[in-house]
């Protein structure tokens, strides 16, 4: 983070628009699809602009390998992983320290909403593969995981969605992409369940004043509501076409 963007790129133009033409509060074009994999119990693909994440849920199930099961609830097992071809330079498929940390924060963004107590001694696997990384891979992962869990029929208190707020050239912006993340002053990923008013992921990389932080959090929660509404729509549409229900 920090440094100067490439020649000819204006992070914030004179018209107040971002390098890709978005206004500060605008999300990238978001695309969601549910039930995209045959084998998985639940699956989804989520795109935030060029960022593309595939999610699959297996379980609740008895794990194949020996594994310390929890006596009073299902264990959530989350793997966030980037495909080798997802980045500019090939990413080694071995899990990096970043991926290990993100697997943890993504798992902890799902723990508050999954009703795991229903399935003691089982494991619920959430596999996330970043197919293309262009900023916001963890936030798109949380959104994809939320949809895949719903698609798998895992009881959950509510849906979660996620977005990152950035600060570029002093301006708070919604849903930062890779370029803005690279040259911006701050990047704050947030996940939340709007139906419950609960924040389930909160990280900040960069510098914000106390006031900027409150504004950024508010912006994040507003965008997350939009994203979760899209999740609801795509679930309704998917099941309407399959089940013939009315929306």
């Amino acid at each position, binding site marked *: 983070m920090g440094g100067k963007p490439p020649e000819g790129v204006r992070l914030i133009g004179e018209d107040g628009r971002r390098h890709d033409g978005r206004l500060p509060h605008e999300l990238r074009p978001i695309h969601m699809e549910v039930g995209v994999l045959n084998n998985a*119990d*639940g699956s989804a693909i989520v795109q935030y602009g060029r960022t593309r994440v595939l999610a699959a849920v297996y*379980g*609740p*199930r*008895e794990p194949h390998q020996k594994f310390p099961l929890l*006596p009073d609830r*299902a264990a959530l097992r989350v793997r966030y992983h980037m495909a080798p071809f997802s980045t500019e330079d090939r990413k080694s498929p071995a899990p990096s320290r970043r991926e290990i940390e993100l697997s943890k924060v993504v798992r902890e963004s799902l723990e508050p909403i999954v*009703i795991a107590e*229903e*399935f*003691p*001694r*089982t494991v619920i696997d959430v596999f996330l593969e970043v197919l293309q990384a262009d900023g916001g891979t963890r936030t798109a992962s949380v959104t994809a995981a939320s949809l895949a869990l*719903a*698609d*798998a*029929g*895992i*009881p*959950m*208190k*509510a*849906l979660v969605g996620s977005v990152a707020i950035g600060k570029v050239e002093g301006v708070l912006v919604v849903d930062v992409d890779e370029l803005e993340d690279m040259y911006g002053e701050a990047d704050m990923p947030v996940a939340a*369940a709007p*139906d*419950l*008013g609960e924040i389930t992921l909160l990280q900040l990389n960069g510098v914000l004043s106390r006031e900027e932080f409150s504004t950024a959090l508010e912006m994040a929660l507003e965008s997350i509501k939009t994203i979760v509404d899209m*999740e*609801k729509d795509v*679930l*309704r549409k998917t*099941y*309407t076409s*399959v*089940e*013939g*229900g*009315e*929306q």
Partner: protein
Amino acid sequence: MESEERQLAGRIVVPGEPVDDAGGEEPYVASVGGVRRATVVGMIRESEEGGRTFVKLKGVYIPEPGHVVIGLITSVGIMNWFVDINSPYTAVLSVQDFLGRPFNPAVDDMSALLKVGDYIKAKVVAFDKTRSPTLTVQGEGLGRIVRGKVIEISPAKVPRVLGRKRSMLQVLEEKTGCSIFVARNGRIHLECPNEDLEAIAVMAIKIIEEEAHTSGLTRRIIKFIEEERKVREV
């Protein structure tokens, strides 16, 4: 028929959405933050008893005592078999239960009784999520499945294949000549007069699974079976 089926259609609700006054069973409907909400994707429709009810469209099979299930033998223990019942939990069937008498390792050969890969029809005796579900094959119609075909559908779709008051199942059996047993865990056992009729019955069940809740489904299934029989000349 038409009006009865139309009632099956309803409004789709998603996890976290309030279900208001609609009935529904835990944990698929749960009180979260003081509001009764759906926890899985489902549908709110008129219930058979009147009023509105939440019906889940997704979900795994959780065994309950008394359920008849179709299980697949996956491994053999010292005194019991481990049985895949299409659930997060593997079930256990004891040799003693299978024999209906005490097991004598000197005389009885377990692998001659049931092999890995065998299907059984069994009743759930006990289950409380802290221990594996136990099964019994003592009872009419229970035991090893020796002929026919077993297929699998989503356990959440079992009520749709049965139909209201088992009306859909009746149609399937009458129109295909098959004898069909639908187990609670989403496995279905078919015994048919011939392979063509079996294939037709399987296809019809898959259509029901995919198009459950659409109106006019029973009529379409009848039409499908009749046309297929004409094409295949059976």
